[in-house]
């Protein structure tokens, strides 16, 4: 299953990067969203997908739980990427409003800078 999940993460990255290289601002942010999904899946897969109970201790003697550390890491990462994505969104919104374009090729600054 890890191999399939690796392929899935790879496809998320592929589509993410393809979106990242688009002209429209919104596509770029969609790309970053896909990239972070891919990264989270990547972390989870690397932690191992072996069988086991959820890491909530019900039976203190049993050790058959899934690895809790990647989950903690992913949780942190989800929150951070959410913060960044929302900031990006508002930034893109403002940039598009201000410059009356959301085309990256037209957002180049100017020669006097």
């Amino acid at each position, binding site marked *: 299953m*890890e191999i*399939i999940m*690796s*392929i*899935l993460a*790879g496809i*998320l*990255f*592929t*589509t*993410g*990067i393809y*979106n990242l*290289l688009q*002209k*429209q601002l*919104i*596509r770029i942010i*969609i790309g970053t*969203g*896909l990239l972070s*999904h891919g990264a*989270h*899946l*990547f972390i*989870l897969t*690397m932690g*191992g*997908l*072996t069988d086991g109970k959820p*890491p*909530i*201790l*019900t039976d203190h003697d049993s050790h058959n739980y*899934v*690895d*809790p*550390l990647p*989950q*903690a890491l*992913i*949780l*942190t990462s*989800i*929150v*951070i990427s*959410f*913060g960044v994505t*929302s*900031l990006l*969104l*508002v930034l893109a*919104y*403002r940039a*598009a409003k201000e410059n009356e374009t*959301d085309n*990256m*090729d037209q957002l*180049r*600054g100017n020669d006097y800078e």
Partner: protein
Amino acid sequence: MLLIVLLPLIFALFIPIMNKRKEQIHIGYFVIWIPIVIFIFFARYLGADFEPIKQHFNWIPSLHISFDFYLDGLSLLFVLLISGIGALVTLYSIFYLDKSEKLAHFYIYLLMFMSAMLGVVLSDNVFVLYTFWELTSISSFLLIGYWNYKKESRYGALKSMLITVFGGLSMLGGFILLSNITGTTSIQGILSESDVILNHTYLPLILGFVILGAFTKSAQFPFHIWLPDAMEAPTPVSAYLHSATMVKAGIYLIARMSPLFHGYDWFFIVVAGIGILTLCWASFLAVRQTDLKGILAYSTISQLGMIMTMLGIGTEIAVFAAMFHILNHATFKGSLFMVAGIIDHETGTRDIRKLGGLMTLLPISATLAFFGTFSMAGVPLPFLNGFYSKELFFDATLHGSEYSTAIANFIQHALPWLAVFGSIFTFVYSMYFVFGIFRGKAKLEQLPRKPHEAPIGMLISPILLVIGVITIGLFPSLVNGTLLEHAAYAVSGIHEPHKIKFWHGFIPPLYMSLAVVGIGTLLFVTKKKWDTVYKKLSDRFTFNRLYDLLIAKTETVPASITKSYMTGSLRLYAQLIIVAMFIVSIFTLVTSDGFAFLEADPSEIKISELLVAIMMIVAAVGTIVARNNVAAILILGVVGYGLSILFVIYRAPDLALTQLVIETITVALFLLCFYHLPKMKPKQDTVRTKLINAAISIGFGTLLTLVAISAHSSKWFPSISEYFIETSHTLGGGDNVVNVILVDMRGLDTLFEITVLGIAALGIYSLIKIRKNKEVD
């Protein structure tokens, strides 16, 4: 000795204070006693029984860099020149520079230079030598650009700076190699390891580096181009730096290092070969100049080439002649520059075509120029020192040592002929200089000022220098045993008393001298007839052109390279970054043979997960395919929800919860932001761009899949999570292990994750609220 070297520098600190009294008295009067004190300090050592002196002052002992001073005959010759000519130049400058000039600047730079030059010739430590060496470059830069409102001054200053610092840095490279190989930073220590260096594989590199430093400083071919442009400096500076002292720093370096390379064929080939080439080329070009200081600049270059040649020959007589000529050149060239300055000062022009017939108007200057130029030309008169050194030079070219390589022997045989050729032109430009100014008909109406003799204060220094010329000419033994023999001994290591004779008998050098005078006179008289040769010499292929081209290209070429990839397009940068990452990772993966593939998967494939995965793949591809932005946003939501289902399947309840909530909020935000934007239809990319983007992203995705597979196929250590699970309850007091990790075991992460959210919230708030006044949303 440290104090005496740093004395000018320390004194320079007080000049701004004196500058406050500049209305009453010229600052030069405060400065002049410093070179005099230094001169007296070192003149004590003159004498037949001189022994080298060594002194040591700590600076950076841990790096073996310390102020080690070593005063031997060579250094003594140079310090006397520096302080002696320095005193005369300061005196001259008092009358040359008006009180309205920025005198404080001038004298600070001059004193800086004096310290630096003393340091160069006295240092025994290669790195201290280099430090002072660069200080001479900097102070020379400041002095050349003294009249910084003139464009030519700035150009000349920059040019000399670039060329001499280029050489200085390569010299530093040579020094580092030398001190690494010999394990000492002391010059005397390095010299004593001569055989180690001569047998080292880096020998050509060391020689090249050191010689490059010396040649750029001493204006040898083809680095001579900075010297004529440095003539934009005030005349006292030209007289001091660019004839007597700084340009001899390279000579000093070669003389200092020649015991190291002595007997190495390439040392002879490069130093003597380039030296004689410089002599011929510069004396040939000097005749073409129309500017007085231009003639003197080319003359200086050619004389330096002559000294360089003698050092390259390196026989005992040649070294002695070189030392002798260093002294002679400093005396007559210093006086000539001062005469040129007087003429500039009194007539208002330095253009030799406008000058003429000044003999009766400036009789004293004319006399001084006569002695200077005739000594420079090497006219056989018993009271001119230039003649002696020229004849010794001819003698030296005739008696070189035997060399093993054919090219060295070829140069050896060509030397006398080239020496005569160069000297003929030296004769011609010397005569051109003196007769061009003082003979012929006076063209007073062309002169900006009505010429009259200079004030006596201005004449003292050149008079003293000319007295030096004559004294050395009449009584060469005065400097011979007391100074020159020690200097020659320091370079060649052979102690042999010399007798400088006016009449050697009918020997080849005499014929050579006579030939020079004869042919030179003939050429000078017929100068008008062959002058057109210079017109045919195209200006297009000079080294000045090359320099200008190089300077221009170093600005435009990097600019165009940068422009070619810094287009301002973020997409291009993203592509470059990703491709670079891809290339580096693939390279590492392939070269380190890092790919691993575990055939038996640790966990079995289940249908439910497979279905979710397929759904996510379809949705992810859908974000690309969807034309409509809102559709793309919604499809992105599908990917997010798919991920949270995966979290459920892989038993991560907290993740699933968070992912669900956050995906919902994100999608809502997306819609909120872009639903309200006016519809902006972007131009579609071309097929080519699409293909490139697709290739980049597929390549990168594949790479990451490979990395993921090989990473999990080679697990080397067990996870530390056992510890978390075991101690979650007992130490953390909680049963939800993920939450205990988040707030207890790794609580710091969470703290800053909260900070991130807070900053993001503040950022969003400011983006929405804070606007420029005129804007209304």
